[in-house]
């Protein structure tokens, strides 16, 4: 491609400069956090760009409550994501394909659970959890994460299923497949990009949750975001641990997103244009 063609394709110098600037703005907070996590304690709030990097903050995280909290976050987020998909995907399929009058209303009711702010659920859940002994437990966290993940799964997957032509399923039925068979072998694979995008979003929402974990956990089921806040000590904030913990907390989301990035892009843009 010659330079004229590249310019026509939107890849001239101006594009690269703009993209670079945009990237710098977007990445700045992450890079700042990263460099802070390697700064020695005595220089942690300094502005000098040259410093001797240290791993002391990462080492410090190995003791104390952080490793367990990190594990709790992982278990709660993965379980909640899987459970949300397990329950939500068939529900979304039913709402997409079902020809019953209440389907639209049911979908709206599901969406309504996302409309209320978390605090609206917190007090009733807190009281119920206390009664049921679910406070400070991983199952308790998974259950509460379902309240927002399920709505997400049902609405997103319903849209993706709407995008899969019914004719393909009907062809499968003619070939002798059952409804579940056509769903598993035809519809779901075609909606895989959507499934991946939905899973990533569910995971991110669960992983990043701070509010519910703050209220509903104590020490045993404490998650990583709450553990990081606990580094804000009275005698001074443990900036190094906060930065190192923040960096580690970002990693799984980044890695997960990178793994499914192809699906993510096609999934998130699917349905934007229909023939």
């Amino acid at each position, binding site marked *: 491609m010659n330079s004229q063609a590249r310019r026509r394709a939107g890849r001239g110098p101006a594009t690269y400069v703009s993209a670079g600037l945009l990237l710098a703005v977007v990445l700045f907070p992450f890079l700042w956090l990263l460099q802070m996590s390697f700064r020695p304690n005595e220089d942690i709030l300094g502005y000098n760009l040259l410093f001797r990097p240290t791993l002391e903050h990462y080492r410090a995280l190995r003791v104390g409550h952080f490793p367990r909290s990190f594990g709790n976050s992982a278990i709660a987020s993965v379980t909640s994501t899987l459970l949300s998909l397990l329950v939500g995907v068939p529900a979304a399929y039913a709402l997409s394909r079902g020809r019953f009058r209440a389907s639209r209303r049911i979908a709206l009711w599901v969406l309504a659970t996302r409309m209320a702010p978390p605090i609206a659920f917190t007090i009733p859940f807190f009281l119920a959890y*206390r009664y049921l002994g679910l406070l400070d437990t991983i199952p308790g966290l998974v259950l509460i994460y379902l309240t927002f993940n399920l709505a997400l799964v049902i609405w997103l997957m319903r849209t993706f299923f709407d995008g899969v032509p019914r004719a393909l399923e009907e062809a499968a039925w003619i070939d002798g497949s059952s409804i579940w068979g056509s769903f598993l072998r035809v519809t779901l694979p075609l909606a895989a990009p959507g499934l991946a995008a939905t899973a990533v979003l569910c995971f991110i929402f669960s992983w990043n949750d701070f509010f519910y974990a703050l*209220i509903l956990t104590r020490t045993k089921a404490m998650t990583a975001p709450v553990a990081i806040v606990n580094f804000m000590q009275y005698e001074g904030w443990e900036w190094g641990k906060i930065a190192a913990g923040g960096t580690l907390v970002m990693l799984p989301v980044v890695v997960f997103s990178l793994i499914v990035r192809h699906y993510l892009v096609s999934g998130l843009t699917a349905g934007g244009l229909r023939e």
Partner: protein
Amino acid sequence: MDEHGATRPVTRRSILGTGLAAIGAGIAAAPRRAPAQAGRGKPFAGTTLNVSAWSGPYPKWLGDYVPEFEEKTGIKVNYETPAFPVYNQRADLELSTKGSAYDVLNLTFIYSSRWIGAGWFTPLNEFLSDPNKTAPDWEPGDFLAGAVAPLKDPKGNVYAFPWIADAYMAAAARYDLVEKAGLRMPETFDDIVKLLKAVHDKEGVKGFVNENHHGWTWIPYLQGFGGNVFRNPPEDLMPTLDTPEAVAAAEFYANLLRAYGPDGILSYTYDQALNSLQQGRANYITFNQAWLVQLGDPKKSKVAGTVNYSLMPAGPKGRFPGIASHGFGIPVGSKKKDAAWEFVKWSLSKDMMRRMLTEKGYGSITRRSIIAGPEFKQKMTINGRDVADLYLKTIDLAARGYMKYRTVHVYPQVDKQIDKAIELITSGQMSAREAMQKAQANSVADLKKAGVKL
């Protein structure tokens, strides 16, 4: 007969009820094992206590000694010390629902009025007056009166005993620069200005620094000028932020920040303020003793060899250093109050407090008998300055009662308005008069919204 004296007919329900009551009475009357027998001298053996306090130095270090308590009493303790905001959020929710999840909680200073006023903590008087529950040598009167005062209700009932009395004082991180200018630690507000004019930007050190929580740091100046936050707290909660005294205090304090503070001073958290002093980037501050003594720690501070301390300087109307005390109390919902009291007694006993001082180096002691001892004086003598004496004098000053503004349950609303006003003045967006009038109007509106009759 019911409570009004009428005779009830005999029904199946009443027969069933009587039968159940009889069974219940039988169970109640059945001989029980005496508690002492159950635990062989450990009356609460087998009990589990849930204890939580925010992660101040005392509660954190106390965790190291909890196994000793468990061994001594046979009580198992689930002990947690989350960060201050995390703790307060959880405790507030737990207390407001009168739950029994916790048996001992920290009574947080800024919520003391709300938590005590709402009846969420247990009055401790009954434990104190019973010699079987409290031995005389525990000596509740040994706690500093000024530190216990915020943990009492208006009738004088005590709800918690303090493990910290954080006292507001002054420090000059680079006192060598002050001496070079031929000055001493400021005694008055005017002296502060003299000092700052002399040392600001000397050797690249900014003159003044403070955190951006003006609702705490500015009040000693407000009261020093003769103003107050409310007309007569806690009875009369009419805000008095637009008085000439308040305007003068706001103008004075904002000028310290604007003229002598580092760039971006309005965004400084306490941690950043402390860090800039430790690094020798800023010099003078009026702030909490628990943080300021860290300037004298050579492991943490580059100014350990030059720092000096004094009482909070006096304004035209006197000296009003703030204090903040936090203590262990028993939530009203706890089902194990006697065992919880054992924990409170142990955690704040003279022996434990002395060990905190000698073994951990804890500096915010709340028992007078230990403060008077040689160990405390030795620990709190920094660069030859008797910080122990400043600490005691400050807490004695606070016992006069001018801290009542701080434990009023609606103070957080006014606190926010004060923060905004000082920011507006310091950044030059409004004059002191305009900003304080706005703060007054907004505070009145917020308080009315909160149901306060003005």
